């Protein structure tokens, strides 16, 4: 007897008890769907966190951390600028460096008429604007002219716009930063990312900072590589260069964001595995449900089994019939669960702005796993059916 024949029989039997079949499948459907949703959202979240950390602009941050000895020999070491103009020029010549992004952030009193705010004044170089791709909601971004001629202009964050202007139009208005007037030319978009906290900020050109407040000390410096694969190499060259220029041993270092991202990734992986296995348990419970119904079905169909045996069905053929039937149940349940889980994950990502990834591995795994459940939990009922004595089965009422 062919497998096609078995599948045909299984379908007619599943269809004969529609309600019961659906209820039986429900356990598998819920199990598979929840596994799919959890894994899809978990993987999507991991990807999102990683991209939030490393950014899409293949940059690497350089930071300055003096060693114990250096601090001891010069207690005022933190007073000195970490990065100088010369450093920037030298770094821009390192092979593979596309842009040197430098900025400094200072808390300053910002004022518009009678409203005051303590804001972060970000003095940035031109590369900062290119690399960080700040999104402008109103007005314009700082442009090359602003940087070259050191115009007294600034772009304020959406939050500062709220605080100083109560969300009214700020463009063209003059705000006072530490007693210096600045014209607002743009307002940034409200940041929606996972790691943004919504701060009151003003972005001004570095040259403007110098002409307004005097000496500028870059506190943050990052390098944009021409190629993401060069990032590590570029970082190493840059720190070697800086350590040589400043005659320090190992004080200039790069933050390897990939490592941070990887460790966060492994945390989300663990979370996904834990939640996924809890969902997996519900699959197991679903499997037990299938076994239960199959046992009932075998008892109900004792006479049918007797007739089939009298007509020449062997044990193996009866076993196969019931095994295929339980696999059919779990497989239909599994496929329905995958579709349901995929649309659930899609909905979550749609409404929560959270990417969800449905990999073919998970889908294939879902199909194979539900089939395996069908085989494992179908074995006992099928074996019971196969072992029935034909004479007693025929007499069964």
């Amino acid at each position, binding site marked *: *007897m*062919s497998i096609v*024949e078995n599948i045909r029989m299984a379908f*007619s039997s599943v269809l*004969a008890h529609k309600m019961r079949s659906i209820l039986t499948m429900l356990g598998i459907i819920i199990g598979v769907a929840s596994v799919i949703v959890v894994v899809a959202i978990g993987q999507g979240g991991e990807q999102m966190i990683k991209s939030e950390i490393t950014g899409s602009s293949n940059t690497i941050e350089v930071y300055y951390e003096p060693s114990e000895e250096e601090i001891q020999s010069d207690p005022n070491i933190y007073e000195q600028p970490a990065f100088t103009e010369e450093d920037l020029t030298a770094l821009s010549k390192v092979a593979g460096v596309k842009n040197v992004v430098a900025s400094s952030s200072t808390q300053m009193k910002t004022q518009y008429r009678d409203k005051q705010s303590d804001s972060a004044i970000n003095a940035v170089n031109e590369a900062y604007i290119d690399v960080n791709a700040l999104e402008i909601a109103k007005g314009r971004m700082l442009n090359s002219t602003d940087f070259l001629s050191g115009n007294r202009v600034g772009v304020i964050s959406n939050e500062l716009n709220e605080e100083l202007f109560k969300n009214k139009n700020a463009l063209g208005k003059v705000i006072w930063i530490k007693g210096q007037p600045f014209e607002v030319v743009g307002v940034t978009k409200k940041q929606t990312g996972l790691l943004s906290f919504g701060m009151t900020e003003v972005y001004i050109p570095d040259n403007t900072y110098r002409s307004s407040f005097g000496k500028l000390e870059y506190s943050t410096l990052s390098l944009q590589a021409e190629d993401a694969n060069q990032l590590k190499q570029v970082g190493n060259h840059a720190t070697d260069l800086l350590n040589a220029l400043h005659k320090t041993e190992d004080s200039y270092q790069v933050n390897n964001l990939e490592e941070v991202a990887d460790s966060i990734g492994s945390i989300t992986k663990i979370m996904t595995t834990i939640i996924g296995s809890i969902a997996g348990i519900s699959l197991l419970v679903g499997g037990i449900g299938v076994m239960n119904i199959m046992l009932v079905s075998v008892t109900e169909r004792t*006479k*049918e089994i*007797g*007739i*089939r*045996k*009298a*007509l*020449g*069905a*062997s*044990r*193996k*053929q009866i076993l196969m019939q019931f095994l295929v039937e339980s696999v059919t149940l779990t497989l239909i349940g599994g496929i329905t669960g995958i579709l349901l889980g995929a649309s659930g994950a899609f909905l979550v990502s749609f409404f929560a702005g959270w990417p969800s990834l449905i990999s073919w591995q998970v889908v294939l795994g879902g199909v194979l796993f539900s089939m395996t459940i069908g085989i494992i939990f179908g074995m006992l009922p099928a074996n019971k059916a196969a072992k029935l004595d*034909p*004479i007693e089965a*025929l007499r069964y009422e």
Partner: protein
Amino acid sequence: MIKLSNIYKSYHIGKEEVPILKNINIEIKGGEFVAIMGPSGSGKSTLMNIIGCLDRASSGVYLLNEQEISTYSDEQLAKVRNVNIGFVFQQFQLLPRMSAVENVELPMIYAGVSRKERRERAEEALRKMGLIERMKHLPSELSGGQKQRVAIARAIVNNPNLILADEPTGALDTNTSTSIMEQISALNLDGTTVAVITHEPEVAAYASRTIVVRDGKILIGDEKESDNL
């Protein structure tokens, strides 16, 4: 064709061994029409189950078509039932969710016959039973006599050389009984060996020989006695 020698069969009820068949010797030749009679509890059903390869004797030798069935495995017995034996039961034993033609196809599924050939042969068997226009009907939509004719069609569809009928008219009225027995006789005339188990003398009258079983023994009709008759 069938040769039972010293067949003994007992069941265990608790610790007690209850003998059902004692020292049975029967020979049925190919093409014969035999009736097996006996009161209920005589062991005739057990005898039929053994002949039909649904059950095994506790001891003794059973030869079917010169093959020693007593030594066969379960899988081999299933094959013998499928190929060599056609069953007709008192309660028809049709699968209720399948149409007449699907019921007739059933033995061929287990014989591995292709779908197309199955349908052709099933229709042919139903035509022979005069039920071709009812082939799409479910058993519940058929009368008792029609159900039994579907069952006969199913019994003959794999061209077995033995038809075993267990009270084939037990659930039917007299007129229908007659037509069913005539159909079974016709099969016998075509060369198929037929064994009918019955307690009705009218049914047994169709047979050329009657074997009477009582208390697990052959009362009349075993080989030696029939030779004497």
